């Protein structure tokens, strides 16, 4: 919502573009892939397909970006994704990196946490940036390529599919028309119309807990950190989060008390009062202006299947996750990257259809993991039962003078889910040092290399990290893998990849196109690696075996 007298598209810091409806003359009536919804996740998927030269039609009912700052915390995994799509520069220029946060209970600091970071990583663990900029920067990439046929003011109103493809009825200001598509990505958000048209329902839990998110503009030069306030004196009984965003925008996030109804909570005067109380608690006395506010609830809902024949659900259409732990957008971005390379591989004829089933498996498991992790944060931030409430109070009050108890208040922010039990992940055949984070299924850790970083050198296909001299590399008979040779005596070469990957001479790691680790071998051989690539391209089943 906006302050009285301001329209939805008036902002203190962002100029919303206005996009016109497509010109009917010359509009294609068929496409290989149609993506419904040009929110961040639809755009990520479109850009990923374009990276492989796959054209798509991307439609959105609106004539601009989503209004309001919405998702603001962008994790390292998302920055790696932006880099893969060649879009990272504007994000780096605009975002505010942050590494730490502080938590207070009744005005007393009980925790200062630092997110794990390393000089071997190109990106920081977390950045704050308003969602409009995220959409803007992704859209700039879309506008640059001819491969994406972007149609604004175009709503999908009907969908049907058979074995050969999908037929959609689209409505724009010039009337209705049909298009045919081989594949459909439903990126149409939390209220997905396509979900409804296909008779599907989200399953899981709807929770009562409601939160207000309010943005203000305030010039207040302090270090960028995240604050959590439990039971602040100015707003007894409530839990508050404070985040700083670019353009001197601050996000204030608080729970609505049980006895207040939503309309009342959303009333501008109440928003202003709550914001003033929080600022007073933080000791900020600079003047401020109200920008935008909204409510949010901590639901955990998902579709039972993300793949339905030729239709894939990605982003919020597939899952609604709670706000705590900042996984909504970050998790969705990994959906878009995941389906993007797999669909491109199948369309190009490089992989079997079964590879697409692994999208469903990997990204549903990732959502369930988000539920599990954010459930812990949610039950601490806003306990739903008496038991959780008593334990939360016990932990907070102990934390005032016992350090161990403050760990319960650590937000444990987003790290990408590890595809350990994915059909694409190869089991280790030898034993490795437990200390390495470079395990099959995990996102590949980065390492300083030359004047840049290891992952900068990955191409759009598979990457083989070959440590020292790996045997039989001539048996790798495909252009779909790029080999990066890495030294095993890192000190001499100033590249610590071998240590980070716990790799000795002759070891190799196979990275998927999305830079997750597929498999690794201590005594690698080109023929084994080639067989593994073929296994992955078959969706995780050994070629020749019937797949289920």
């Amino acid at each position: 919502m906006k302050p009285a007298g301001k329209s939805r598209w008036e902002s203190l810091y962002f100029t919303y573009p206005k996009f016109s409806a497509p010109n009917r003359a010359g509009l294609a009536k068929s496409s290989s892939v149609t993506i419904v919804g040009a929110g961040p996740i639809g755009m990520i998927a479109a850009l990923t397909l374009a990276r492989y030269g796959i054209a798509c039609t991307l439609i959105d009912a609106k004539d601009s970006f989503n209004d309001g700052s919405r998702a603001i915390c962008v994790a390292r995994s998302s920055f790696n994704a932006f880099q893969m799509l060649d879009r990272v520069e504007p994000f780096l220029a605009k975002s505010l990196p942050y590494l730490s946060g502080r938590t207070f209970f009744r005005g007393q600091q009980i925790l200062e946490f630092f997110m794990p970071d390393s000089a071997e990583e190109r990106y920081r663990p977390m950045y704050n940036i308003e969602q409009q900029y995220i959409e803007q920067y992704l859209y700039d990439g879309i506008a640059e390529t001819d491969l994406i046929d972007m149609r604004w003011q175009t709503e999908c109103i009907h969908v049907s599919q058979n074995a050969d493809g999908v037929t959609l009825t689209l409505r724009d200001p010039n009337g209705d028309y049909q298009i045919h598509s081989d594949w459909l990505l439903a990126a149409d958000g939390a209220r997905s119309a396509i979900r409804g048209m296909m008779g599907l329902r989200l399953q899981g839990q709807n929770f009562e807990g409601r939160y207000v998110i309010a943005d203000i503009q305030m010039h207040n030069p302090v270090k960028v950190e995240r604050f959590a306030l439990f039971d602040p004196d100015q707003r007894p009984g409530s839990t508050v989060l404070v985040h700083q965003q670019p353009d001197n925008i601050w996000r204030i996030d608080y729970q609505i008390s049980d006895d207040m109804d939503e309309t009342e909570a959303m009333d501008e005067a109440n928003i202003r009062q709550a914001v003033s109380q929080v600022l007073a608690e933080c000791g900020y006395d600079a003047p401020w202006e109200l920008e935008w506010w909204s409510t949010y609830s901590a639901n955990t809902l998902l579709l039972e299947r993300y793949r339905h024949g030729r239709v894939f659900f990605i982003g919020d259409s597939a899952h609604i996750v709670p706000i705590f732990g900042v996984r909504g957008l970050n998790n969705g971005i990994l959906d878009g990257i995941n389906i993007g390379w797999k669909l491109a591989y199948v369309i190009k004829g490089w992989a079997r259809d079964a590879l697409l089933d692994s999208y469903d498996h990997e990204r549903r498991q990732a959502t369930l993991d988000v539920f599990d992790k954010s459930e812990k944060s949610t039950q601490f931030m806003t306990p739903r039962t008496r038991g959780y409430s008593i334990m939360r109070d016990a932990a907070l009050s102990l934390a005032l003078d016992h350090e161990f108890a403050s760990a319960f208040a650590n937000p444990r922010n987003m790290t990408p889910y590890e595809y350990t039990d994915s059909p694409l992940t190869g089991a280790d055949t030898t034993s490795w040092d437990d200390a390495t984070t470079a395990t099959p299924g995990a996102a590949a850790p980065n390492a300083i290399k030359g004047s840049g970083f290891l992952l900068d050198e990955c191409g759009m296909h598979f990457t083989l990290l070959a440590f020292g001299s790996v045997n039989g590399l001539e048996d790798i008979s495909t252009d779909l893998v790029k080999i990066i040779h890495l030294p095993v005596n890192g000190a001499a070469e100033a590249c610590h990849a071998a240590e980070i990957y716990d790799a000795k001479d002759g070891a190799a790691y196979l990275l998927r196109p999305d830079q997750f680790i597929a498999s690794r071998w201590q005594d690698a051989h080109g023929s084994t690696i080639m067989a593994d690539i073929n296994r992955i391209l078959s969706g995780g089943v050994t070629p020749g075996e019937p797949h289920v």
Partner: protein
Amino acid sequence: MSEMSMETVYTALAEGIDRHGPEKSDMFLAKVCLLLAEELGNAERSLELIEAAQMNMKEMRQPAG
């Protein structure tokens, strides 16, 4: 631990519960449990003991009539 010192712990818990009253005794006991578990430094054993505490949740009945 001698029987004597266990009795002292028993008494301290009883008096703590009384001191904090029905409103806050749960929180008091929760804090005690977290502190003891931290001291024990063994999550598996802590969980076994939490499980053990849930057996036979029988209390003295009110005398009839």
